[in-house]
C-alpha cells in the first residue's frame, strides 16, 4: 500500500511500475484540474496536515478490508495546481475486475467527501470561490453501507 500526500506532480507510469504483482486486473483513476467556466487558471487545494494522511490511510485500509486487493495506491496533491494538471490518482489491483473497479470507486467516493481537502478556484485576477461540496457526492457514500 502506498499513500502519498504531496504538493509535487507525480507520474502515473512510475506509480504503476511493479504495481500489483500477481493481479489480473488493475484500475486507475486520475482526477485532473478542469476549467468549466473558461475563467479558471488554477485550483488551490488546502488540506489539514496531520489529519490528511491519517484519514486517507484509514480510507485505504477500509478498502483493503472490504476487497481482496493485491495492491493499492493513493497519491493526492495539495497547493496550487494549473488547469490540466493531475490532482490525484488511485490505483487498485485485484484478481478480478469487479473487485478492482469497486475498490477504486469506493476510494474515490470517500476521498471526495471524507479526506480533509478544500478546493478553491483561482481566476486570472486571483483567488475566487471555494468549490462547494455536492449533495450527489455525499449521497454516493450511501451505496457502500
Amino acid at each position, binding site marked *: 500500500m502506498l499513500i502519498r500526500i504531496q504538493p509535487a506532480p507525480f507520474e502515473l507510469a512510475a506509480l504503476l511500475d511493479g504495481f500489483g504483482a500477481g493481479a489480473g486486473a488493475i484500475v486507475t483513476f486520475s482526477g485532473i484540474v478542469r476549467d468549466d467556466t473558461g475563467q479558471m487558471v488554477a485550483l488551490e487545494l488546502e488540506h489539514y496536515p496531520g489529519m490528511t494522511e491519517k484519514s486517507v490511510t484509514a480510507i485505504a485500509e477500509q478498502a483493503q478490508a472490504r476487497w481482496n486487493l493485491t495492491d493499492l495506491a493513493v497519491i493526492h496533491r495539495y497547493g496550487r495546481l494549473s488547469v490540466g494538471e493531475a490532482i490525484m490518482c488511485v490505483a487498485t489491483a485485484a484478481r478480478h475486475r469487479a473487485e478492482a473497479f469497486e475498490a477504486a470507486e469506493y476510494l474515490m467516493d470517500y476521498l471526495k467527501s471524507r479526506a480533509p*481537502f478544500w478546493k478553491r478556484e483561482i481566476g486570472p485576477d486571483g483567488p475566487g470561490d471555494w468549490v462547494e461540496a455536492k449533495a450527489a457526492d455525499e449521497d454516493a457514500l450511501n451505496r457502500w453501507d
Partner: protein
Amino acid sequence: MKLDVLYFAWIRERIGEPREEIETGAETVRDLVSQLVARGERYEAALSEVKSYRVAVDQELVDFDHRLDHAREVAFFPPMTGG
C-alpha cells in the same frame, strides 16, 4: 482546559487566522461552538450555521455532541472537496 483550535478554507478566512489556543470549560463541541460564536462577528459569520461545516476532534470527524474530555485539537472546516 487548553485547546488548539484550527480553522480551514472559508472558515479560516472569516475568522481571520488559521489556529489559536483557547482556554475553555466546554464539555462538548456544541458548547465550544457557543463559546466561540459569543466572541463576536467574525466567529458568528464563520460558525453560527452548524449545518454548513464539519468538526474534527484530534483529527477524527465527530458530531456536535462529541465530548471534549481529553481533547487537545479541535478543527472546524467546510464539507470536504477532495478527489
